[in-house]
């Protein structure tokens, strides 16, 4: 009978906590963040402390949160949408769920990294790179262009993440610049050569670092995170030179939700993210390229050469994604 008295109270306490534990702060600024708590959590708390504006943050996958926000529609509690990729935010923009940002905020960032309708703004840039294992591949043997990866000597040696948003953005850009059939042929050739596929950028960098695969296409900052965890890893970044589309720059973005009743605070939040403090934080903690306030990137990063980076307006990516996902499916990379 003594044993009986053990679980009973636990259950009662739990039920009381659940019933009593509802009710979030209704006056708080609600942020849907496609960026991870581990990376941006401290920054968001700093905003709250500095401005006295309470915040409620929902972290999740950018695309999942975009779908959620679209389902919630007018009833969404979200005031701000913070996205990893232009794709997810482009989807919400098309649904008419985002509000136009004030001109003075838009003026802080290169128009290449903003929506042409002013409904989202880029915060940081990520560059597409070729991650390679320096124990397997000699730097001198790396290709000049992402298009060279379809040559026989690279067949089966380059990892791709076909269901990943950043890879899709890269394919969209390729299709827009070089034409849809060029992009489709590139995808088909990669698939025919037996390019190994992975779930996401993380898995690619992980596999390259282990030596499971020699090279892989990923975003630049993942490898810096991996090296932070284990500096002995043999994975290195290689940036395709001379404006090659393989070195595409994409942006993490922020936007204000149209139905928000806290537009003013939401805009304050956007402004905070564009100021020096936040931009410095991104540079130091997330190894991304700050897009505003003239903040320099982390000294560990190669300087971002805007001149040689491909000239491309990422605003055009949102509308392309549906076609891109179909092209990727047709190539057989998803099978």
């Amino acid at each position: 009978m003594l044993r009986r008295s053990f679980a009973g109270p636990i259950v009662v306490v739990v039920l009381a906590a659940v019933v009593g534990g509802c009710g979030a702060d209704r006056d708080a600024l609600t942020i849907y963040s496609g960026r991870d708590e581990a990376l941006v959590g401290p920054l968001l708390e700093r905003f709250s402390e500095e401005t006295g504006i309470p915040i409620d943050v929902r972290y999740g996958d950018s695309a999942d949160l975009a779908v959620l926000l679209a389902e919630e529609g007018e009833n969404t509690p979200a005031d701000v949408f913070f996205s990893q990729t232009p794709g997810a935010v482009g989807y919400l923009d098309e649904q008419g769920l985002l509000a136009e940002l004030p001109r003075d905020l838009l003026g802080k960032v290169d128009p290449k990294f903003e929506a042409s309708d002013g409904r989202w703004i880029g915060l940081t840039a990520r560059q597409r790179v070729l991650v390679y294992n320096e124990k397997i591949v000699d730097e001198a043997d790396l290709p000049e262009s992402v298009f060279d990866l379809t040559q026989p000597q690279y067949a089966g040696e380059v990892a791709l993440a076909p269901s990943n948003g950043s890879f899709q953005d890269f394919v969209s850009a390729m299709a827009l610049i070089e034409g849809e059939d060029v992009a489709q042929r590139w995808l088909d050739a990669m698939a025919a050569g037996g390019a190994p596929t992975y779930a996401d950028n993380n898995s690619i960098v992980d596999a390259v670092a282990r030596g499971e695969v020699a090279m892989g296409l990923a975003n630049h900052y993942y490898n810096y995170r991996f090296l932070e965890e284990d500096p002995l890893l043999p994975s290195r970044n290689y940036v395709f030179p001379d404006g090659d589309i393989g070195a595409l720059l994409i942006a993490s973005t922020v936007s204000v939700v149209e139905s928000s009743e806290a537009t003013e605070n939401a805009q304050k939040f956007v402004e905070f993210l564009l100021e020096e403090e936040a931009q410095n934080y991104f540079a130091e903690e997330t190894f991304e390229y700050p897009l505003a306030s003239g903040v320099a990137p982390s000294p560990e990063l190669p300087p971002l050469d805007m001149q040689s980076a491909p000239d491309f307006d990422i605003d055009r990516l949102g509308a392309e994604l549906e076609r891109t996902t179909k092209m990727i499916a047709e190539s057989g990379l998803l099978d």
Partner: protein
Amino acid sequence: MASSTKTHRQRAPWPLIAAAFASAALFSGPLVYLVVRNLPGDASVNVAAAQIVTPLRNSLILATAVAGAATVLGTLAAWLVARTDLPAVSLWRVLLPLPLVIPSFIGAFVLLAAFAPGGLLEAVLRPLGLSGLGQTRGFAGSFIVLTLFTYPYVYLPAQARFRQLPPSLEESARLLGRRPVATFFTVVLPQARSAILAGTLLVFLYAVGDFGAVQLLRYNTLTRAIYTTRLFDRPVSLALSLLLAVVALAVVAAERALAGRRTFEMPRGVRPLRHHLGRWRASAAAFLTLLVGLSLAVPVGVLVWWSARGIVRGSTGGADLVSALSSVARPALNTSLASIAAAVGAIVLVAPIAYLTARYRSRVGDAANAVVVGGFALPGLALALALAVVTLGAPSPIGRLYQTLPLLVFAYVVHFGAHALRTSQVAVAGVPRAVEDAARVLGAAGVARFVRVDLPLMAPGLLAGAGLVLLSSMKELPASLLLAPAGFQTLAMKIWGATESAMFADAGLASLVLILVSGVLTWALVIRRGEAFV
């Protein structure tokens, strides 16, 4: 001796039918949403055959293979623990259910880190002149990972049943000269069939609905197709989700037919027969060591390695172990609260359905059964979106539930109610009619009879069900991400965020805490309590 406990002559009392109906109505929300969203609107959905055939076939092959393998492993482990003189039985009883708590996205990642080319195993073997295991992807990898992390679905109910089986039949068989192995297959197994099949069904549904493992290990299943189409091809994504639910319902029906109506009386107070393993003792221990080694020790080993590496280098956010651990304390508490509430809620909500289906023939019961079990096969994302839309569209008292803890707990209950349902049905069926009748004759009526006679008899089965709901809720991710109140972080959410940012030390620590908390809760609420009744 082996008389049926089910009488078809009696009609179910109407309050029971009403309660089961109400409960099923609560469970049906997400399914109704999917059906409504799939009703042809202006543009009918254009799903190419290729988009369906291969993923569907892959899903079915994978889920069937995993269900088969997990059934064999889980049953064998359960029998060894419940019915033999295995060394260190208590230790096995705590360890064997635990792999269930490892989220498949972290399980697959960790096993890759251990066994994939260039992984930790290879680093260990290289000095010895051996190489690693080669490719670990696609079907083989998904099959191994899912089997290793789902066998407890079979182990838990099978173990509960084995512990309750009366020794008399087995003793007779033995006295008549049957060898132990033959006795197991002809006497023990048939008596445990319904419990084992209940677990097999859960494994199948888990495997068919899993996304984390197949995505990391690159096996093209329905869940992956649902995921890749979720943003830019929503009609296809919704149609495929509905297809997944239909597959689940078909399998539920098949299992109901297979499990049959043969159940057995279980006299209470008789210790089950314990076999002397003799010279097989070492082999049995070796088998369990291998099983727990691969499904628990290797993952824990990799997680410890990540954490230790981070602590040594000071790369865990706060630079030292103490601050890293304190950042996990709150999520650990949140996870425990929500999961315990879900376990209790699930047992209570499915009770009328379990009673109705196990004791009477009833159309309402069959439909309710299907609705509850179907909730398990739905992708967590579809389930969460459905609950979001339903609560947001509802009038005030329900509408206010959106993004509150009760709604999250309810999502767990809907998602994992199936765990509690099948084990509850088995438990209800295990209460002999004769005992109830005797109680009735002796004057114990209604509620009193239920509490004093039925409940203690059902307790081990119910607790096994509650344990399954608890462990599954603790690792749930997609619904937690979308439905948890803002600022309410669970351990699975924390682990996911850390792995997304490649912060392996943080992910490792949080995962270890998840496994530890699950172990303690399983022991305190399931194993200890279960013991009290046997």
